[in-house]
């Protein structure tokens, strides 16, 4: 369960130290955009030490690494993969070949560290027009890919369009990402809402993302974590309805009935799958988090 994925700059020890206390299901320690080129080494060392010291036992951990066209990404993988974060987020991923390059390098680091191949998963950040058009190929390039992640700020720059709060300019990108990820059988996460002072806007944007089919959403302000979690949590009405569906299925099985209807509507497989997902998520939330 990753309703919210919270970005924390990799060079801010005071914030990282509280990363697992801010309510996000997943914390992304950022070695890329948040860190100036002359601080890359320092941030990598800090993130490495923080993972070792803090453990992040109560929260899923992602590390965003530098893109393949920089001199930093290999050192990022060498330092971070042995620490077994849940996910590595490579940036500006443009096609399946990028995933394969990363996959091979990670497998090597895993081998050297005595970790089973594929221990650490990938969540490629799609933030270029090329990456967007290749989203399905990226998502299905390797079993290491656990999810796709939309980065709208860089994408809109690449698309030559302004980034707006309303987000009409990324409607296609959102739709395409969701379709590609679902077709490949992986999760998909929405770009952050970047106006940290607009709480209402954050709620609206998160609800819209959920309505489109995203699995969760990135957050750049801890203040928005709760709103995003709520938007991506099943409502009590949805939970009650899912329980009703599953109870009807159970009852029909006991009675040996094939076709099942509830409140005059047929219950088909997708409805059952959705009900099971809803209950699984409600149970995970009740247990208090993603881990």
């Amino acid at each position, binding site marked *: 369960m990753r309703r919210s994925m919270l970005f924390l700059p990799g060079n801010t020890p005071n*914030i990282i*130290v*509280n990363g*697992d*206390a*801010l*309510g996000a299901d997943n914390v992304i320690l950022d070695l890329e955009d948040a860190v100036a080129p002359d601080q890359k080494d320092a941030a990598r060392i800090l993130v490495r030490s923080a993972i070792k*010291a*803090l453990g992040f036992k109560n929260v899923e951990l992602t590390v965003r690494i530098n893109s393949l066209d920089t001199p930093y990404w290999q050192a990022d993988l060498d330092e971070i993969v042995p620490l077994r974060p849940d996910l590595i987020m490579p940036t500006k991923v443009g096609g399946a070949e990028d995933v394969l390059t990363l996959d091979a390098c990670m497998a090597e680091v895993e081998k050297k560290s005595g970790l089973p191949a594929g221990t650490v998963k990938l969540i490629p950040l799609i933030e270029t027009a090329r990456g967007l058009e290749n989203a399905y190929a990226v998502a299905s390039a390797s079993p290491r890919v656990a999810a796709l992640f939309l980065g709208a700020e860089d994408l809109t720059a690449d698309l030559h369009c302004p980034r707006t709060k309303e987000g009409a300019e990324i409607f296609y990108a959102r739709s395409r990402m969701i379709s590609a990820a679902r077709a490949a059988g992986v999760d998909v996460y929405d770009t952050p809402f970047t106006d940290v002072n607009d709480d209402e806007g954050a709620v609206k944007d998160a609800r819209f993302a959920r309505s489109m089919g995203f699995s969760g959403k990135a957050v750049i*302000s*801890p*203040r928005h974590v*709760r709103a995003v979690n709520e938007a991506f949590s099943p409502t009590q009405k949805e939970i009650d309805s899912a329980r009703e569906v599953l109870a009807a299925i159970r009852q029909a099985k006991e009675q040996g009935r094939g076709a099942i209807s509830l409140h005059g509507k047929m219950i088909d497989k997708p409805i059952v799958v959705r009900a099971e997902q809803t209950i699984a998520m409600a149970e995970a939330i*009740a247990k*208090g988090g993603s881990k």
Partner: protein
Amino acid sequence: MMKDSKVIAALKDAILRSGLKDGMRISFHHHLRNGDGVMNMVLGELAAMGYRDLTVNSSSVFDVQSPIIDHVKSGVVGRIETNYMGAKVGRFISAGGMKEPVVFRSHGGRPSAVENGVTPIDVAFVAAPTADPMGNATGKIGKSACGSLGYAEADARCAKHTIVVTDNLVPYPLEDAMIQEQWVDGVVAVDSIGDPQGIVSGTTRITRDPVGLVMARTTVDVIRASGLLRDGFSFQTGAGGASLAAAKFLKDVMLAEKIQGSYALGGVTSAIVDMLNAGCFRSIMDVQCFDLGAVASIRDNPRHVEISATRYASPTSKSCCVDSLDAAILGATEIDTDFNVNVHTDSNGFIMGGSGGHSDVAAGAKLCIIVAPLIRARLPIVTDRVTTISTPGRTVDVLVTQKGVAVNPARAALRDRLAEAGVKVVDIHDLKAAAEKLTGAPRRPARGTREVAKVVYRDETQIDSIKSVK
């Protein structure tokens, strides 16, 4: 003096008429906070008149009153009794600057001691933002308005001689007056009793610190899970950023769940006023206003009620407001694994605070919640033993940090309730270990052997002794 006026032209004359002698006890209140000009004015006058060895009993001593240091050095002031001391004077005291130890009481213990003759006041100097010629006085109006004058009431009522000092003399009678004429001997009009900028804060913004917000939300979760949040709920919180945030989140919950509380108590901020105006409480019982919003509210809203320190928290009154409190949110400089709280001294042992109402509220409230980050300025907040015991651990129920909530082991039922409601309950020793894993165990500063201050609990027993700092 004319029969229909107690106005005395000069402060010096008022002092002469009071019968004040060397070695006597004089008192002040702290409602003008860091804008107060009256204590400095009076002590300056007393020094010029040649007084020696006076006891200053003030509900607080702020940094603006640091000229008291010179009066201690010169022998004008021989003893200080207070409930709170700012860091400037605190540092001087901690360094051994005063022969006699400072006596710290609480906001409830002080009026009790005044009323019961433990600390009889010879002359009370009452700074008054507005007064009439017979001594009726209020803090609600005037250019130096500070709101409630609750801490001055016992002084004015019980002192052998009471002098009101005002910068806004209005015609008799001043109807709504916390300080009443039957207690007042003289009234002195001055140009200014203080700097309005320092009296109240105009800032009412809640914290934007994500850790503070997490703790505030968790605090509200604890209050909800305790079962106390129902119609008739009563509540007190402080003026810090996280406290204001907790008030805001609590307001949202109370409105959403249509809960109407009975009263909010304090130490009042705009956040509490907002809760009153939104219908979260029937009334505010206000011993002290922290900001301009609270001052305006106590002036304009009859449901925002001014109360004395005696009514607020005196343990020897027949009852007081803290006794009926459901939940209170308090801060801490340190808390130890027995839940004892320090709000008197900093990590180096220097005095920089005091109980204020901390220990009173903790003793009275059914649910006393301490809110503190696990680490502050690279130091862990949870320790094996606090540097100074300000509030005994037996009166503290819960510690809220950003990394979990610790419940006093004596409150097993509460712990179970919180855990059942999904609050992340952890052992306080584990919080200490988690902090020390990051910071290391801090070394204790070297302390002298000389007692520089006594911490006197609300029942007049001494619960700790503050030593000099080497």
